[in-house]
């Protein structure tokens, strides 16, 4: 168990910072979940919900930033406390970007042509589910300070990228074969897939921040031998 702080006020604010981040990550995870479901359901109300949640995410990001500034100014954190504050700032930024991508992909998903077959929808949905799982893992690793879990989730990104490329190839082939009526219609799924892939990238960034937060070291993950 971690030792308690001699400055209770400081300790309380560090806890508050983590709680704010937990709250923010819960909203973003919900946003991603809804957006991924919209790929299948095309529910416009749900798409609107991701938009509404995005506003909450922006407020949460500002809260994290304000509290981080307050902690830095009033308590001058050092060592692990300093790393936590910087990690909180960076993670909140990554979460905010994830929220934006979720909102955008949900908006595009409701206008996808019904001419697309189930196989394509299923492929996009599967990519979405995997991204969702990666995000969940990486956030869990942050709050539980689990280095191994952060590395494992970092590694998931390669799978996400593979899936994304395969989906992209499929879509481009369809456009070549003129299976889509117009190019514009074909690009929508590409942009959705791209949003999902970008969420994966942000999750990867968080994994790197989590490892720095825990160890104080940057790890060249490409050279690490975990699987």
């Amino acid at each position: 168990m971690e030792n308690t702080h001699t400055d209770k006020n400081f300790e309380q604010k560090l806890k508050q910072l983590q709680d704010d981040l937990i709250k923010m990550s819960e909203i973003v995870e919900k946003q991603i979940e809804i957006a991924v479901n919209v790929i299948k359901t095309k529910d416009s109300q749900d798409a609107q919900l991701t938009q509404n949640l995005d506003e909450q995410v922006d407020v949460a990001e500002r809260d994290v930033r304000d509290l981080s500034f307050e902690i830095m100014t009033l308590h001058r954190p050092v060592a692990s406390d300093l790393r936590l504050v910087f990690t909180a700032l960076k993670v909140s930024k990554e979460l905010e970007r994830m929220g934006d991508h979720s909102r955008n992909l949900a908006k595009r998903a409701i206008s996808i042509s019904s001419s697309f077959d189930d196989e394509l929808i299923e492929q996009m949905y599967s990519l979405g589910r995997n991204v969702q799982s990666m995000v969940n893992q990486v956030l869990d690793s942050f709050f539980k300070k689990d280095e191994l879990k952060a590395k494992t989730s970092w590694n998931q990104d390669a799978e996400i990228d593979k899936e994304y490329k395969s989906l992209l190839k499929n879509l481009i082939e369809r456009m070549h074969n003129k299976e889509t009526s117009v190019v514009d219609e074909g690009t929508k799924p590409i942009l959705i897939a791209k949003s999902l892939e970008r969420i994966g990238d942000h999750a990867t960034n968080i994994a790197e921040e989590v490892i720095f937060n825990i160890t104080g070291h940057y790890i060249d993950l490409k050279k690490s031998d975990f699987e």
Partner: protein
Amino acid sequence: MVEQVNSFAIKTKNVSVHYGNKMAIDDVTINFTKNDVTSLIGPSGCGKSTFLRCLNRMNDVIDSCKVQGEFLLNGVTDIYGDSIQVETLREKIGMVFQKPNPFPKSIFENVAYGPKIHGLASTQSELNDIVMESLNRAGLYEEVKDRMDDIATGLSGGQQQRLCIARAIAIRPEIILMDEPCSALDPIATARIEELINELKENYTIIIVTHSMSQASRISQRTAFFHLGKLIEHGDTSKIFTKPDKEQTNDYITGRFG
């Protein structure tokens, strides 16, 4: 990296100190790089002041105090050996204490006393030069130049402490030991002393005991953390305050015990 013998102002090895049966320092090995400011930090009773006082044999006067281990000045001179007199040692290793302790004499006499007894000036003019230069280096000359004959105890706390620094550097030491030199001063006087420490490191090696973590981080290039008589960690200040290797160091500097 190859260690240059001459790059260290003081090298110590396996230092242990006992007060009677009580162990105050437990097998500490640490080297102090020339022209660096090194902060010794740790909770009260951790041994940091005891260790500092070993470096110029201030503990010699305490009968029950037994110092063991190796202490080398400039990598060669045994601080506790026969080749150097305590008086000569203290010419080379000066000290500034927690509470400013000027002699109840004039400002001039306070600074001139050391050079006089160590025979550093052969004429009055030389002595005047040393006093002026020392006060200048301590950043005090401009404030006292018109009242050099006034009694030193009439100066403010911050001025008195700078006078003590001027007194320490008047005998041209290589190393200055400081034992919480700012703990009795207000923030402005503290800032002035810290600025001075930064200037002095150009010419001197400074080892300072401080309870203020922010002071250690502001003024020192190296930081050593002591706990229960042991040296827990010693390294670059920037590293100690961002990513210390030891959990105990992290706990102390973040305020998780003390």
